[in-house]
């Protein structure tokens, strides 16, 4: 059953060094505040899972918190490459990074298999694609009915999934609206789930078919307005595209990166996110 608590409490109770963790969000609702709190608490040696690792995983990799990355697209969307990820893979700074690389279709299926309690996912995928050569977790199964050979990948079962959502009610039921991505699957596939929300309300006022996670599927709920910035929260504030563009320069240089992380993450607090989106709210 969901417990309401502060973000530092939720991270301390649910994330441990060595965990497999997913901070999910498909461009929308990326849980930046949770990831920053994990960095402040000095959690290390993580296996991070996400379909689209972008700025916040670049930050975690650059700070040396990550041992292994399981992903399908690692870029700064519309801007370019992730420079801290590149420095780790190409130069081993701050240390080498193990990678397990998939396609989006395989990752989405693998989360779904995790949520469904299945050991693996099956898809018509990877045909002629070389990832199957370099990733031993991409295998095949033969359909027992038609004989078709299909791709198989192991289910994703994170120790903990962090997501950001628009709102929770006072019983801890969570509403996700807009581009819902793979967050429902990522929560249901995980042993524990932490959700940061824009607001806590008396009534979710949700459509009967809305994407709602019942409170009993969630471990902790934290009120963190702006917690997705510079990603966005549909209906609350738009994507801060200029910050994504600015990140390319910040991440290009190790010292600039470290100074930025100290000022904006290590010396900051979850409450700071509210200020970061204040100028954006009127544009939503």
């Amino acid at each position: 059953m969901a417990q309401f608590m502060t973000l530092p409490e939720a991270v301390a109770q649910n994330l441990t060094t060595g965990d497999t963790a997913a901070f999910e969000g498909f461009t929308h609702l990326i849980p930046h505040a949770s990831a920053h709190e994990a960095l402040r608490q000095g959690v290390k040696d993580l296996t991070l899972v996400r379909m689209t690792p972008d700025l916040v995983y670049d930050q975690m990799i650059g700070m040396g918190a990550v041992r292994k990355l399981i992903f399908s697209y690692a870029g700064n969307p519309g801007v370019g490459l992730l420079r801290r990820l590149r420095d780790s893979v190409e130069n081993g700074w701050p240390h080498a990074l193990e990678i397990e690389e998939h396609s989006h279709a395989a990752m989405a299926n693998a989360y779904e298999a995790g949520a469904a309690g299945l050991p693996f996912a099956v898809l018509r995928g990877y045909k002629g694609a070389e990832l199957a050569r370099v990733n031993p977790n991409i295998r095949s199964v033969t359909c027992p009915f038609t004989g078709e050979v299909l791709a198989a990948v192991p289910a994703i079962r994170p120790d903990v999934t962090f997501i950001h959502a628009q709102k929770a009610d006072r019983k801890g039921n969570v509403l996700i609206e807009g581009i819902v991505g793979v967050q429902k699957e990522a929560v249901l596939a995980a042993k524990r789930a932490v959700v940061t929300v824009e607001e806590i309300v008396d009534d979710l006022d949700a459509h009967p078919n809305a994407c709602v996670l019942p409170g009993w599927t969630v471990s902790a709920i934290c009120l963190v307005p702006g917690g997705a910035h510079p990603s966005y929260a549909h209906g609350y504030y738009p994507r801060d595209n200029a910050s994504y563009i600015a990140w390319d320069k910040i991440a290009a240089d190790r010292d600039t990166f470290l100074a930025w992380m100290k000022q904006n993450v290590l010396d900051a607090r979850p409450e700071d996110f509210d200020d970061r989106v204040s100028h954006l709210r009127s544009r939503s």
Partner: protein
Amino acid sequence: MTETDFTPTEMMTIAAARALKNTDVCFVGIGAPSAACNIARLTHAPDVTLIYESGTIGTAPSVLPLSIGDGELCDTAVTTVSVPEMFRYWLQGGRVTVGFLGAAQIDRFGNINTTVIGDYDHPKTRLPGGGGAPEIASSCGEIFITLKQSRRAMVEKIDFFTSFGHGEGGDHRARLGIATKGPTLMVTDLAVWRTDPVTHEFTVVLLHPGVTREMVQAECGWTVRFADEVGETPSPTELELTTLRDLNARTKAAHSGTNTGEAA
């Protein structure tokens, strides 16, 4: 209108846009494909269904998204589905007629690399990776590709097969059991290319206005094959050019001016 009234990039986007039909269901890659697909929608193909992998089906953004998941894609879509549903029911289910992709590195058979430059385990440059492309390339009815020509991008041999085009050419797709057509069209800033029906090698069928065969070869790393009869791409119309420039201006305005210099 004279030939100098538009840039090579504008010609590329407009020529690529013309390839989409009003009845197409198109899976849109970010960057150059996104501009072309929306120009198609804003000119000759108002009812084209544009799908972005974030789950937005039938979207009609007024500005080009910076990412594949900008909020406006959802606001203007017919419906927005989850990412697993997108890849399972809609893409794998065979509902998409055209996949429109860009490429960091491509060969003459439309095989695309967006994974690494150099060796996979010790890359010279680690690129973002495939994302949706491996299954877009095999599950869409056919594949259109658009990119600016350069010897760095158009190479004799790609470093990594992120997504499969026609492999070694000929019937290589069929031998792997892939039933879809694969790459059929490539639009660059210099020319329009179609795949040969037998060898499946990209072949120049149209040169953009003012472009010579030598210019196409100078920016391509393989020996370019030209069709027996090479025509000229029709210049952009006033409507196409105005629509593209208005879209670019709206996009530029929308993507700047929100940064406060604070945490990203």
